[in-house]
């Protein structure tokens, strides 16, 4: 049944390709807008850097401490973990203002993020849905289950239609995610039109700085160091070498 359906070639010229072009151009515009808008550079505090470097050093100690003699390892663990003088115990850090409403900088940050990324997506998605409604745009090359029908076939009320035929709105969303690699080619790395990366950034924390909760991180690292065993790998290194 589905093989009998043939789409008007005008759809190809007037819908399919224009949606690609629209998505692409909107992405480029978004990139330049974010470049022009003065973004608040995340100013890293000295304490943050200190903490993150300490974490790196503690982790290196855990992983590679086996190359050091026992005394050196214990000395360093003592530096970090000791009850009275250890780094992870004595450094008091305030939990930063987690409440997004009261912290003004975070509000503007969120607002700017939303405006540049989510809003255009919604607006353009809605416009495309309104303009190019009532007909099929393309067919997905693999078979889909019926649960996808209401999502991908907005505006087409045909119960018997195969779920692989999709409307223009779904083609638009496909483009938004698919053109990511083309943006990398055109705009170079690290461009602001890369929406999915922005969403990933919002979910994970920053790698270099420890903004959210140094206390929890310290506690985790303290425990990890406490349970770390030290076996000196180089103990019989010379015998191993000779027998090689």
């Amino acid at each position, binding site marked *: 049944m589905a093989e009998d359906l043939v789409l008007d070639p005008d759809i190809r010229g007037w819908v399919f390709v224009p949606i690609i072009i629209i998505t692409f151009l909107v992405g480029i515009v978004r990139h330049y807008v974010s470049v022009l808008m003065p973004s608040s550079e995340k100013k890293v505090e000295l304490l943050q*850097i*200190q903490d993150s470097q*300490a974490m790196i050093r503690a982790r290196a100690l855990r992983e590679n401490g086996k*190359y050091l003699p026992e005394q050196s390892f214990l000395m360093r663990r003592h530096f970090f973990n000791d009850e009275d003088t250890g780094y992870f115990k004595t450094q008091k850090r305030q939990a930063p203002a987690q409440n997004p409403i009261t912290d003004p900088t975070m509000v503007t940050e969120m607002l700017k993020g939303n405006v540049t990324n989510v809003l255009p997506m919604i607006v353009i998605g809605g416009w495309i849905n309104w303009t190019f409604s009532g007909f099929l745009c393309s067919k997905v090359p693999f078979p889909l289950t019926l649960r996808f029908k209401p999502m991908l076939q907005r505006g087409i009320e045909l119960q018997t239609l195969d779920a692989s035929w999709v409307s223009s709105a779904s083609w638009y969303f496909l483009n938004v995610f698919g053109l990511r690699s083309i943006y990398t080619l055109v705009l170079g790395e690290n461009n602001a039109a890369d929406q999915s990366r922005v969403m990933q950034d919002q979910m994970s924390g920053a790698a270099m700085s420890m903004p959210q909760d140094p206390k929890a991180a310290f506690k985790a690292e303290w425990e990890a160091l406490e349970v770390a065993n030290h076996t000196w790998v180089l103990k019989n*290194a*010379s015998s191993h070498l*000779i027998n090689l």
Partner: protein
Amino acid sequence: MDITKEIGSWQEARDRLRKWRDENERKSEDVVDLFISYIGSNLSKLGDEKWVVMEQVAIASMDMHNLPIAEDLIMELKERFPKSERVRLLQIQRLNLLGRHEDAMKGLDAMIDRDPTNSVPYKRKIAILKSLGRTTEAIKELSEYLNRFMSDQEAWSELCDLYLSEGEYNRAVFCAEELVLHTPHNFFVHQRLGDIRYTMGGIENLKLALSYYSQALKLNASSMRSIFGLFLSASSLSTNPRVPPADKKEYTRVVTWAVDQITKRYLLSFKHSTLFVSISIAFCLSM
């Protein structure tokens, strides 16, 4: 050595400068020569790149003690970027060149106050102190820096060198161990630890030196220094009266193995050098 003979036009000169910038090469003499011959008169043709080029040439000319060029460039950069920290760094470098080290250090302190997270002024200050021979102050500043930036490999390495120059072997060992923690698969860090431990002397240290040299050899079997280090520490241990005889046997085995390796290596490179090899072994044994 004369680079102006190689380069024919200002475009080539600009490309060569860009290549050196990207690869972080500091060919100061060539940079200044290129600037004088080609770039200087064509600066306006470079567009926005000219500021970066000016910075590069300013640093190079200060390396070559060519003060007039440096001062001109710094003045222009300052007019264009009055609040820039990078330009400030160039000015401080100029103060160093003129011998006004105290002023330079005050400038660096001001930079640190303005932005304590920038590691460059700290390092420059320590470099100035080191060049003035004020090693103890340099050590103090460097330790404070490391208290904050604990994972900075270069800084640990530098501190290790400073301690070695002062003869503080224990602390040098601590610094060298930090480097092992971060890059344990690099044979050189193990070798350095072995060297320091061997220099410190004493049975425990010699044993540690032995293990470090063995590890260095495992990671890089062609390091002559490690083999000699292994040989020396093993032979000192095997001839030491306080070492129990069971261990001594082990150490003598190491010594024979090391001698074997050394002979093989030398014979590979010098075909007719049995005499040379036996002389070198005899020399080592007599030490």
